[in-house]
């Protein structure tokens, strides 16, 4: 008897999620009407301009370094280090979050976002100690990107290698 009851209940429960999903979708659509859209075009333009300016500045510095007799590869490395260091410094001074808010992807994409995502938790978790605070939370934002990025790069590398071989 009780088994029968359970079965009946089970089929009811199975029907419910489908209905629930539809309601959820309908409500999400309804809520969207009230939500202002992010200003995509303006954000893109800002990001394009700021990102472009940073890259142009970096390129200028690289050319200057190459003019001083450093070869292209080393000059590129130096410029990358400079970009990372400025992002770290700006994060430390508490300015990067404001810059990031205004300029968006423009400042984040040219390596600087990565530096920021390491320094920000490091500052945040200083109070919990160096090892268990900073040490464990240092990669809380950058870690997932690193793990997934390296894994997918490895996968792509293997595919590339297989294609080359056959």
């Amino acid at each position, binding site marked *: 008897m009780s088994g029968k009851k359970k079965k009946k209940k089970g089929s009811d429960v199975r029907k419910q999620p489908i209905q*629930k*999903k539809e*309601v*959820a*979708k309908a*409500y*999400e659509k*309804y*809520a969207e009407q*009230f*939500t*202002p*859209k*992010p200003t995509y075009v303006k*954000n893109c333009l800002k990001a394009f301009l700021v990102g472009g300016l940073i890259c142009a500045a970096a390129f200028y510095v690289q050319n200057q370094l190459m003019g001083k007799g450093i070869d292209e590869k080393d000059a590129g490395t130096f410029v990358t280090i400079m970009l990372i260091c400025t992002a770290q410094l700006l*994060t430390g001074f*508490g300015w*990067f*979050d*404001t*810059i*990031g*808010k205004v300029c*968006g992807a423009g*400042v*984040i994409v040219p390596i600087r*976002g990565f530096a*920021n*995502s390491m*320094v*920000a*938790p490091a*500052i*945040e*978790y200083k*109070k919990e100690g160096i090892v268990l605070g900073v040490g464990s939370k240092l990669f*809380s*934002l950058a870690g997932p990107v690193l793990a997934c990025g390296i894994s997918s790069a490895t996968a792509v590398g293997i595919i590339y290698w297989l294609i080359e071989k056959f």
Partner: protein
Amino acid sequence: MEKEGLEVAGKKIGKQTIRFVNKPIISGMCSVVGTKEGQGPLKEYFDVILQDDMYNEKTWEKAESKMLKEAVMTAAKRSGVSTEEIDVMLTGDLLNQLMSSAFMARDLHIPFIGLYGACSTMTQAMLISGMIVDGNFATNVLAGASSHFCTAERQFRMPLEHGNQRPPSAQWTATAAGAVCISAAPNENVKNLVPPPKTICLTEGTIGKIIDTGMKDANQMGAAMAPAAVDTLLNHLEDTGRSPDYYDIILTGDLGFIGKDIAVDLLTDAGLNRGILQNIYDDCGTMIYEKEQDVHSGGSGCGCSASVYTGWLFRRMRKGEINRALILSTGALLSTISPFQGESIPGIAHAVALETM
């Protein structure tokens, strides 16, 4: 063993509402807010405005704890009772294991119950405190709630210095704390004040149900909580047999600009008059900040509604500018891990009706 006198009749009305027969009163209150909130439109109403959100403490959590302690102790002081006369204290906050509340209470030696209702904690605490006093289990009860932008942000979202962009629907967790002292009878000293302030008493309370609409976006709290507020409000009106214009003001906790619009729309759909609603309905999340303060969809957090009630609403009620109010704090009961597990956000709202005497 026969149980006699088991009567809830008269105290419970309708499905979800209780009536405070003995009309417990709000004998003292205090609001403490952070720097940003102190620059908002309600700055003249708050009791304490911090110069620095760290509040001379070493960690953000300690700062929040100190804010709550300040609010609770001042509320007790203003009610005219000593800490020994406080029978129980009910507070809550947003942090894991109620860190701010428990750490605040550890050197006060007052019987303590911690509450978690996300951002609905203030009315949750007031509702239960009202019941305790109304049921003659206590004469003086402290109820309070706190939130801090920096502690909530690191627990639920990103480190502070992370340079990310917030979507327009995101809300700003208020750095604020508020507390009230709920007593069985007014203190004698208060009556001698000139001009005599009005007495605010708790008349009804409606316990909310969890309403989950299936919203999964943690940056859309207002939309996730609005149906819960609407459900509690409609049930309150049905249980009490009142129309919304019975109240001078209906105040929700932290629905924000988006949630407020949705709530008004849903209530209009349910048959309430939109014109009346626009006159008497407001939301603490939309009141605490200026639009120019870059808070996107408004304020949120337990402290948001707690400070607006204790700072703005109760102060105006004492002056007699508002006589009947219904407050509904709204909470989004998500955890730090539930969004990653694909769970939707359960919403809740508790209502407390207040009248002046």
